[in-house]
Structures are given as structure tokens and as C-alpha cells.
């Protein structure tokens, strides 16, 4: 238990330090982008959050595989928490993305931004994960169904990415490219720090929520024993 508690504290501290330095770098160190202007600075949070959301879904799928394949104890709970955080990061991606679209192109939603559209599809998919999970009694059946659905999700990510790219041709091929401006040295460094900060935040929140859920599970066990 000692290592687990301290891992939580350590990861939280790491996340805090990285977040603080990322914000400091974004605010003071990195130059304002020449053509896009100040609003380009949203990019340093928007894209790292999106990449972290992918990491959450990937981690959730990995834990789901561990549950199905190796019957690893607790893997189902970890898969659920990872996907839960994935949806939260996904929501933030959509929000910051739409603010960025508003700032750069004057519209609150840009179908041309492949990244945003992909996230919308994944967001719909993973919200259905929770509808599935909460309509089955806790137990091995629920763990299996959730795990299989999580695996579907990780297959859906590349497929949807390809589909959206293919859809470009016949929906409305517009000129705005959305894969971000070319990054100079300092920009790239800030981007990496910000990404590391987001991943560390995921790690900290992941351990935090897991700790809470494990205590909750043990509490239920205790209550049943006393019943």
C-alpha cells in the first residue's frame, strides 16, 4: 500500500510541476505565431489533450485485453477508469477545438478539421461504452462486455481516421488545413512539455480515481460481510 499511496502523491506532484512549467512556457517563453496570431497558443493545449485522450483509450483497451486474455484481477476497473478519463479529455479536446476553430476561422464547429471530427465520432462511441456498462449488473458478464467494446473502440480509431480523410473528397474539400502550423524549435519544445504535462495529469487522475474506486469496492465487500 505504501508504494501505491506515494505513487499517487508523486504522480500528482509531477503533473503539477509539468503543468505549471507548460503554462509558463506558453505564456512567456514561446513566441506568438506569425500568421495565426495569439489564438495559435490554444494549439499547445488542444493537441496534447487530444493525444492524451488517445493514450487513455489505448490504455483502456490494453487493460481490457489483459482482462479478457489473462483474466488479470482489477483490469476491468482500470480499463473503465482509463476510458472514463479518455472521455473527459475527449470533451476538453472538443471544447478547446471549437474555441480554436472560432478563433481561427470564425466558426464554432469546423467539419474540415479532421482532428475534431474524429474526436466527435470517438466521443459518441465511448459515451455508448458507459450506456452499455451501466445497463449490466456488476460481475464477470459486465467486465467481458465492456472489455470487448473497448477493444472495438481502439480498432475504430484508425478506421475512423481513414474514413474522415476519405470523406474529405466528397463532403466539401476546403482549404483550411488543421494539422497545425510548422513548429520552430521553441514551439516544439513547449509542445512536448505541454504534452508531457497532459500525460502526467492523466497518470495522476488515473491513480486518484482508481484509489477511490478500489476503496469503494472494498467498502462494498465489507458491507456485504457485515450484512
Amino acid at each position, binding site marked *: 500500500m505504501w508504494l501505491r499511496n506515494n505513487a499517487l502523491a508523486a504522480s500528482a506532484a509531477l503533473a503539477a510541476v509539468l503543468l505549471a512549467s507548460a503554462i509558463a512556457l506558453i505564456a512567456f517563453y514561446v513566441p506568438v505565431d506569425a500568421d495565426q496570431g495569439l489564438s495559435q497558443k490554444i494549439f499547445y493545449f488542444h493537441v496534447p489533450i487530444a493525444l492524451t485522450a488517445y493514450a487513455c483509450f489505448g490504455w483502456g483497451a490494453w487493460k481490457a485485453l489483459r482482462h479478457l486474455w489473462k483474466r488479470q484481477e482489477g483490469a476491468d476497473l482500470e480499463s473503465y477508469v482509463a476510458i472514463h478519463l479518455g472521455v473527459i479529455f475527449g470533451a476538453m479536446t472538443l*471544447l478547446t477545438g471549437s474555441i480554436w476553430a472560432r478563433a481561427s476561422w470564425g466558426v464554432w464547429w469546423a467539419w474540415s478539421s479532421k482532428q475534431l471530427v474524429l474526436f466527435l465520432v470517438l466521443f459518441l462511441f465511448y459515451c455508448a461504452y458507459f450506456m452499455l456498462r451501466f445497463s449490466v449488473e456488476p460481475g464477470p458478464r459486465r467486465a467481458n462486455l465492456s472489455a470487448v467494446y473497448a477493444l472495438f473502440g481502439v480498432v475504430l480509431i484508425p478506421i475512423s481516421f481513414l474514413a474522415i480523410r476519405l470523406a474529405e473528397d466528397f463532403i466539401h474539400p476546403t482549404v483550411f488545413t488543421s494539422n497545425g502550423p510548422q513548429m520552430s524549435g521553441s514551439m516544439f519544445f513547449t509542445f512536448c512539455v505541454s504534452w508531457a504535462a497532459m500525460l502526467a495529469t492523466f497518470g495522476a487522475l488515473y491513480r486518484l480515481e482508481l484509489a477511490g474506486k478500489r476503496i469503494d469496492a472494498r467498502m462494498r465487500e465489507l458491507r456485504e460481510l*457485515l450484512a
Partner: protein
Amino acid sequence: MTSGEKYVAAAYLVVFLTLLVYVVIIASKLQRLEAALTDLVERVRARG
């Protein structure tokens, strides 16, 4: 504040608020856990 600054501030505020709401939810869950624990302790004590 130029419109650019407003949007940047809005974006970062949204991220900050989302994380804050998340932490608050986790905190309230922990409080409920604590209450459940004290209730259980009393039940054991009542069992004597």
C-alpha cells in the same frame, strides 16, 4: 483584450474548469466513502 486573447483565455479556462469539476466530483465521492465507513464502524460497534 483583443479577441485573440479572449479565445486563448477561454480555452485555458475551459480546461482548468473541467479538471476542477472532475477533482470536486472525486472529492465528494471520497466524502461519501468516509461517511459510509463511519456508518459501518458504528454498525460493528453496535454489534458489540
